[in-house]
């Protein structure tokens, strides 16, 4: 069966520090991969999605970037975090445009 992993589960970082969040999927090939951010009490904001290795689409211009170095690996990065980057980051996968399967999430607090 398919599983999705995200780490770390929680992270506290100072403003201006770099960020790297990792997501891996097991049990499926060539999935579509997604990064979302959810601010407290808010909906899901799509940040990036990828339909294949090295193919990244950005939805919101900001200081975050994403990479997909392997078929089932998706990385969210930042060179310098802002206070507004705090939130709950979720990785998800899907096949075609069907059901999305979400990871457990990373709670990021920028101080």
């Amino acid at each position, binding site marked *: 069966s398919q599983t999705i992993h995200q780490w770390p589960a929680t992270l506290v970082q100072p403003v201006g520090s770099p960020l790297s969040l990792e997501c891996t999927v097991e049990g499926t090939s060539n999935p*579509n991969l997604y990064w979302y951010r959810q601010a407290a009490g808010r909906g*899901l904001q799509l940040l990036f999605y990828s339909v294949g290795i090295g193919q990244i689409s950005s*939805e919101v211009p900001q200081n975050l970037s994403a990479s997909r170095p392997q078929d089932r690996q998706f990385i969210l990065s930042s060179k310098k975090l802002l206070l507004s980057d705090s939130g709950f980051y979720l990785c998800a996968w899907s096949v*075609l445009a069907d059901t999305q399967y979400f990871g457990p999430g990373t709670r990021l607090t920028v101080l």
Partner: protein
Amino acid sequence: SQKIEQNSEALNIQEGKTATLTCNYTNYSPAYLQWYRQDPGRGPVFLLLIRENEKEKRKERLKVTFDTTLKQSLFHITASQPADSATYLCALVSGTYKYIFGTGTRLKVLA
């Protein structure tokens, strides 16, 4: 731009009653619409998908309707239980790969 609105930010109902959640969308004609459940601190979990040519879909105590004329979907939980308390999100797919989520309705079922 495409927009999804879930009318109620929060909904409290008595155990045993039917909960009805609303999802409205604008500037789009989706081929299908999805509903997810999200518990605090967790990623959303897929519940139901309804296609544009389906007026109604059922799964156990859940029922979803889809009115493409009104651009609205209704999500019903019959015989609600305290364990149904969660945030419920609707989502539509824009194009082939991009998902747009509503802000969610926080449902609380009172014992």
